[in-house]
Structure formats: C-alpha cells, structure tokens
C-alpha cells in the first residue's frame, strides 16, 4: 500500500530509502555518536541503533545547538541519515540539515510512517510504501 504525504522543505532533495522511526525526540549532541552513527542516549527507544543511511523519522530535535555540527560530522564521515522527516523541525535539526546538505522535510504526520517502510522524498512530497500491508 502506498500513501502520499505533503510537507514543507527544509533542505531540498530527491531520495529513497528505508524508514527508521521513533516517537521520541532526538538530541544529536550527546545523543548520537559522531564516530559510529549510533544513538547513544541512555533510555532512548533507539539506543544502540545506527541511523546511518536511513530515512530518519522523528518528531523534533532537542538539546544543545552543537547538535547541528554533529549532523555535519556524520555526513562528512558517510554516517548521516539519507534524509530526515520531522513532525515539526526546530533550529538544531534545520541548521544541521542545511549545513550538512541532508534532505529534510517537516510538517509531516510522522505516525503514518513505520520502521521498515520504504520512503521516497521528492521535495515536499513524501511517498510511503508500507512494509506490511494494512488490512
């Protein structure tokens, strides 16, 4: 089953990949290891999971503004997510996506996307192929 969502472009791009989804906000500074691309925040539901090369879907960023530079470091090391989809983007993620040039779309109902779904981003348009067809 395919669904189509329409959001707002923070950094433009045309990419396709597998979704990694969390309902919890992400802090890149202190919460993601720039050396491995894994989430290291204690108690986060994605703790230990690599965000590299995924279409990373989460509600919004949190924590220190240094987080923008962590996204840049991940990108330069080939460890960044392929794209970011937010419910509501805030400055840490927006600035990080722009300086790292990671496609980023927000104002998307992120509850419609599950881990494992195939997601294609065309600018503000987000197409989602559900991994398990809903009944």
């Amino acid at each position: 089953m395919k669904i189509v969502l329409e959001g707002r472009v923070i950094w433009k791009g045309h990419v396709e990949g597998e979704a990694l989804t969390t309902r919890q906000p992400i802090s890149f500074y202190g919460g993601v290891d720039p050396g491995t691309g894994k989430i290291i925040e204690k108690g986060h539901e994605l703790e230990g999971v690599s965000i590299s090369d995924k279409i990373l879907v989460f509600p919004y960023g949190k924590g220190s503004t240094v987080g923008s530079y962590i996204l840049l470091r991940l990108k330069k090391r080939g460890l960044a997510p392929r794209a970011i989809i937010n419910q509501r983007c805030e400055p840490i993620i927006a600035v990080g996506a722009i300086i790292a040039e990671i496609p980023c779309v927000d104002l998307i109902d992120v509850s419609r996307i599950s881990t494992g779904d195939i997601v294609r981003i065309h600018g503000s348009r987000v197409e989602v192929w559900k991994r398990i067809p809903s009944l």
Partner: protein
Amino acid sequence: MYLTRLEERMLAGEYGYAAQKAMEILVALGKIYGAERMIEIRSAQISGVSYSNLGEEGLEFLLKLAEDGCVRVPTTLNPCGMDLEEWREMGIPEDFAEKQLRVIEAYRRLGVELTLTCTPYLAGNMPEFGDHVAWSESSAVIYINSVIGARTNREGGPSALAAAITGRTPLYGLHLDDARRPTIIVRAPRIGGELDASALGYHVGRILVGGVPLFTGLGAISRDQLKALGAGLASSGGIALFHVEGVTPEAQRYSREHVEDVIEVTENDLRNEIEMLGEEFDEPDLIFVGCPHASIEELTKIYLLLSGRSVSRRFWIFASRAVRAQAERIGLLAKLEELGVRVYCDTCPVVAPLKRLGFKNVLTNSMKAAYYLRSLHEVRVQLKPLRKLVEDAVR
C-alpha cells in the same frame, strides 16, 4: 517570507558560497518561525569555538565559509578551551592547543574579533537599547535582552554566524514586542551576593517552562548580580529575557495582562538550591571565579576581600582580555598576582579540558558553572559566596 533584492541575490549565490549558505539557514529559520521578513542587525556574538564539539568536519566547514565569506557587522567570539597566551602554564596539552588554534584561525579569517569571552558587553561589543542583534551564548543573550534592552533571539553558533555573514536575521520572537511581555511575576527576597542572584536565577529557571519572568522585591541589585541572575535563568531554564521591577529598562514598558501566574521564592528555596547542586569534599584543588567572565568590579572586590593575604591554594579568576587589560592599567592585576591569584582569559572551566588538567574538587560561586562542570566534566563542585571562597583560598 519577503526578501529584499539583496537578500534574494545572496540566496541565489551571487555573493558567493558563504553568503548563500548563510541565507539558506536564515530563510529556513524564518519559515519555521513564520517571520515576515529579515531585519538588519548591529552586531553578532558567536559560540561554537571548541574543537571537541566542531571536530575536523566543523573546522573544514568554517574554513570553506572563510574562502569567500566575511562578517558584515561587528562580531565577537565565545571563549575557547584555553588561554591563548598562557595555555602552557595552565597545563593544556600540546595536541589540544594545536587543534584549538586552528579553529581560532578560521574565525579570524571570517573577520570575527577574537574576544573569546562570554561577556562581550564588558569587552567592547555593547549594543544599545532597542538594537536588533544576533547573539549566541545564553548568558550574554539574556544579559543584553534584559539589562540593556537590546533584542536578540537565543541563537546557536551556526545561526549567529549566518546572521553575521549576511548582516541580518529573521524578524520573529524576541525581536518583536509580543514575546517580551512578562508572563510570570516572581516575588523574591532581597539579594545578598552573586551566589544568591545565581541561585535565584537557577531556581526560577528550573521551575518555569519558558516565559518571561518579572522579578519584584529584589531591592538594589548590581550589574554583576544581574549577570549572575541571568546566567542562572538561562542555564537551568533556557530563558532569554527577564525584567526586574525598578531596575531593567523594559520592566514598566508592557501591560501585565499576559501575566499568567505569580510565584513566591523564599531564602530557604535558594539555600536548598545551592545545597542540592553542591557536593561534599574536604579540600578543593581549584577555587575559581568568573562564570560568566568576571568584571573589573569583581576583580576589585576580590582584591579587597583578600586584604593583603596571599592565597595558599590555586585561585583562578576568568575574565575577558579587555577586563584583564583594564586591571593591568590600573595596577590591580599586579597586586592580585603578588597575592598568588591568577587571571586567565579566552577560556573558562566549562570549556577547558578540566579533567585532563587533573582537577577533581572545584569550589566556585556560580550555579551555571556547577551545573555544567558536573554534567560535562564529572568533577565535584561546591558552591560558596565570594567572601567564603576568598577565606578558603587563604586558609
């Protein structure tokens, strides 16, 4: 969002890579916050100087911006991890110093003034009432918003740099009257010293979720106490503006119809806050003052409290190079040094590699410093008022 012709040309890349990247950041922020247009700024203050946060990749990005970019307004810089002149004496490792100097050089190429202080308003970057600026460094943001009446949002390092390179920032938030109205009244006891002011800020920041507090009942309050109050509010609560009745310039400016709540703070609350953040230890291996960076008044006060007695353990003061130079001119620096006090610049214990310097027990009078030292450096911190710090130092 409306853009002028110049802004559109920057965005299109006609002014080079740096201006384009900067404008992309500002337009995205403007979109997120619903800004109608940009506003020109008078100055900027940039954070993001530590190599350990920027990494090699962040440094490369700064150097790329510096290839064709330059700041368009007076721009100052936050502290780095060491005193640029006396880092060897501080015990800073060689490899750390080498990397830190490369970051500083990148900012110099961008035309940023290497003030390396969190109190640029004590070092020549002093906005006027009503000026629009783009500052990062939470304690400086809250000081100029509240005590001076200048207008800035709480910028991050890259957004402040983007504003400096283009000379503008999106017009939203604290640039507009709406967000500057008091939302909560705080009835507080009279303030003793800087530690009390710091604890009051920290306490109120911790219980408020955003908003603009209006303090009443504080009595006479010095600039240094306002500095400490703001740093406390900004570190525990992310607050970027406060008013003090009868003291700060916008305290009477707005009606109080947006006030949603009134809270009462007692002296007991402040004592508890200080005890909760502090930890027990017998002997401090570092006593320090200057978070935020100390003023000339604070240096004078320390000298007077010492009243001729030499310190018997490490007593460091952190200040801007401008304040240190002022102390040198009036002979105060030499007098402090004679008594064994060191005045370091360009850095502070929060951004210096404290653990690598071997410190474990630190005594200070700043709640902000205590909060960050505990979470970032895993050292034990005890909080005491300035008078007691000095007594412990000479004991």
